[in-house]
């Protein structure tokens, strides 16, 4: 379906990533946010608090991130599209409820505007060190989707994509921004509402007698109902059967948790989004995401100017990790160069998928500012040798 | 005849004794019978004293007993059935 025009601020704007993300959420149909202030993410909810009373919706600043991360889920079950926004320390506090969203298959979006860590770290400076945490932060086996914008424009466009994916797969989706993308101001074009595709909630049309809250008919994603519609269903974080009733046996556990995993994993190729350039015939491929990809772009250009055959693969979706793509590429190239604003996180996934078929060079950075192009160029030169 | 009667779901009972204790007219006592879990469910020992007040039902934590009036005020029944 198309976006609700009430939430779409059509026009050409000059805004930062945080602000663009808020507009993306509104355009996607988000009408509920629960948040807690944390630098460098706060502007997203501040803007939402200012916008939503004139669009129709609710913002509530909760007493902590533990509350925010579950209040938004209550709102989802009450019928709204909902999200929260945070950074490192708040993200850590939200982990239990991220697991709850995965287990109960609550469609929602968690925005993490990454900053230097660990702990209080660098509140006003960038990092990309929560990438593994987005994937593995909560306990137990579950799968999630994570997107990495690299510009304010993408903060708008991809937030819509994040909501769409969350509804399609009934899964929490992570919007992995960083402080630079969040606070850089660039041109953001917001199209008319009828040019924006929005995925509706997979709402059941079954009768009360027929409906099974966690039953799947062939596809791995159950249909959802909301409180107040007469279905009288039960939702629990305990291991449950198709009726949603707690059923704590190894068999039910196996069925449920594998479905939660396969729901995403089987659709990896459909979910994955990249930006690719010059992969054919490349000796070295630079794999990057988020703000680092913009520095990598410069490094790649410098390397190509030196006559090197360097390709670019930008991960727009970091999770599920595009193993097949990397494995396939690994068979054709000499090496991967993986610059990240961390001491090595996604590079481990690249290495794992490459399985030794290509060498992997990490270009690490503890965070606080972005790489210099020369740092990445140095790694490219070494990889090309 | 008695103003009320109780229905007992024997299999749900856990012999907590609340119904026996708090019946205002001492209609019930724990029986010596067992249900399949090994508990002694209550049985009616003074049926004529039952008023159908359902205090037993309100107290029962296991939803194992229900007291009701024989002639609900809204209906005009013969009351002569046995």
């Amino acid at each position, binding site marked *: *379906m198309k976006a609700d025009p*009430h939430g779409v601020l059509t026009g050409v704007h000059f805004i930062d990533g945080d602000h663009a993300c808020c507009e993306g959420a509104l355009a996607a*149909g988000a*009408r*509920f946010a629960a948040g807690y202030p944390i630098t460098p993410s706060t502007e997203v909810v501040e803007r939402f608090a200012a916008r939503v*009373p*004139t669009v*129709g*919706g*609710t913002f509530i600043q*909760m*007493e902590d991130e*533990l*509350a*925010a991360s*579950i*209040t938004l*889920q*209550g*709102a*989802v*079950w*009450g*019928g*709204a599209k*909902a999200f929260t926004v945070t950074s490192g320390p708040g993200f850590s506090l939200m982990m239990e*409820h991220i697991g*709850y969203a995965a287990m109960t298959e609550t469609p929602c979006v968690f925005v993490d505007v990454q900053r230097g860590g660990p702990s209080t770290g660098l509140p006003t400076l960038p990092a990309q060190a929560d990438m593994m945490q987005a994937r593995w932060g909560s306990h137990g086996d579950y799968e999630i989707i994570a997107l990495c914008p690299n510009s304010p424009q993408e903060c708008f466009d991809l937030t819509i994509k994040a909501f769409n994916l969350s*509804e399609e797969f009934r899964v929490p989706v992570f919007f992995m921004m960083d402080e630079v993308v969040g606070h850089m101001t660039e041109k953001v074009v917001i199209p008319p509402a009828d040019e924006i595709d929005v*995925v*509706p*909630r997979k*709402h059941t049309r079954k009768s009360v007698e027929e409906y099974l809250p966690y039953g799947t008919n062939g596809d791995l994603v159950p249909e959802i109902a909301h*409180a*107040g*519609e007469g279905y*009288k269903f*039960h*939702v*629990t*974080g305990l291991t449950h059967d198709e009726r949603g*009733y*707690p059923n704590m046996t190894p068999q039910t556990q196996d069925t449920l948790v594998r479905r939660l995993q396969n729901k995403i994993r089987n659709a990896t190729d459909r979910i994955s989004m990249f930006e690719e350039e010059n992969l054919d015939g490349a000796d070295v491929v630079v794999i990057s995401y988020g703000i680092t990809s913009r520095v990598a772009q410069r490094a790649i250009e410098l390397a190509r100017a030196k006559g090197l055959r360097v390709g670019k693969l930008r991960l727009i979706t970091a999770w599920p990790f595009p193993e097949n793509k990397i494995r396939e590429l690994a068979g054709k190239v000499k090496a991967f160069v993986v610059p990240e604003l961390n001491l090595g996180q996604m590079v481990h996934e690249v290495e794992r998928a490459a399985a030794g078929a290509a060498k992997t060079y990490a270009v690490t950075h503890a965070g606080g500012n972005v790489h210099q192009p020369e740092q990445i160029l140095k790694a490219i030169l070494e990889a090309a040798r | 005849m008695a103003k009320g009667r109780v*229905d007992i779901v024997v299999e*749900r009972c*856990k012999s*907590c*004794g*609340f119904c026996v*204790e708090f019946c205002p007219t001492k209609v019930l006592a724990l029986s010596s019978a067992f249900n399949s879990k090994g*508990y002694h469910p209550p049985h009616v020992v003074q049926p004529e004293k039952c008023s159908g007040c359902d205090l037993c*039902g*309100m*107290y*029962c*934590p*296991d*939803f194992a007993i*229900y007291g009701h009036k*024989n002639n609900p005020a809204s209906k005009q029944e013969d009351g002569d059935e046995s």
Partner: protein
Amino acid sequence: MSELVNPVEAFLRTDRMPHIWCPGCGIGTTVNCFAQALIESKIDLETLALVSGIGCTGRVAGYVKLDSFHTTHGRAIPFATGLKLANPKLNVVVYSGDGDLSAIGGNHLIHAARRNIDLKVICVNNLIYAMTGGQTAPTTPDHAITSTNPYGSFEAGFNLPHLVEAAGAVYVARWTTFHVRQLARSIAEAFKKKGFSFIEILSPCPTLYQRRNKLGDGLDTMKFYKEKSKVRHGAPTSEVGLTMTGDIVVGKFVDRDRPDYQTMMRAQYVESLGDKYVEQTECVCG
């Protein structure tokens, strides 16, 4: 003679009976009172949602035939807040235990009371963490023996009515599982109120709290409630603290009026934005 059905059956997921609660546990008794209150208040069950946390009382959500949510430990209240704000037509009940609501959930309890979110909170207080084997709870009376205070607790227990009154609740009552009629009436009263209502229900945990403290079984505890309860409607909540063997002050302590969160929200937006204010629309999720 027709077989009349126990009205509580209509509220139960009978396919999940028997429940897991111990012999002599009072939680099931509170559910009877809850069902009675629903019948008396003629609450539309289709727009009633029940949210619980983790613990023995938290399992109520799984046994009632309502839209029910068994959430995380301590976080039933914020979940319920989201539910209510997204769909103001819902009647939202939080049904959880003393540990869940006042320890890990304590912060959310006081903020929801402060905000006066329109929630009916039923707090079953068995003075212990029962589900996990009988550890000390914030409500455990001084000197009580628990698995984490094996030599006796040396902390004062929370006076929950005092806490929630101070935080801003508009309806505060305490009963015990002995007071089945009064409790049902109290819950029905809370349904008539708009704002944050809190009903504490003292309940036996014969397996852990009573047993470890040699206080008898469930029936002994019920008799203890009968003997020691003193009904004092309107009592100052500062005076209703509990001790292991002392008097239990029960009754309706607070019944006041204060605009609830959504009323205040709306009023503020109307005042600031006038015509530009657009109230929460129906779900546009498609």
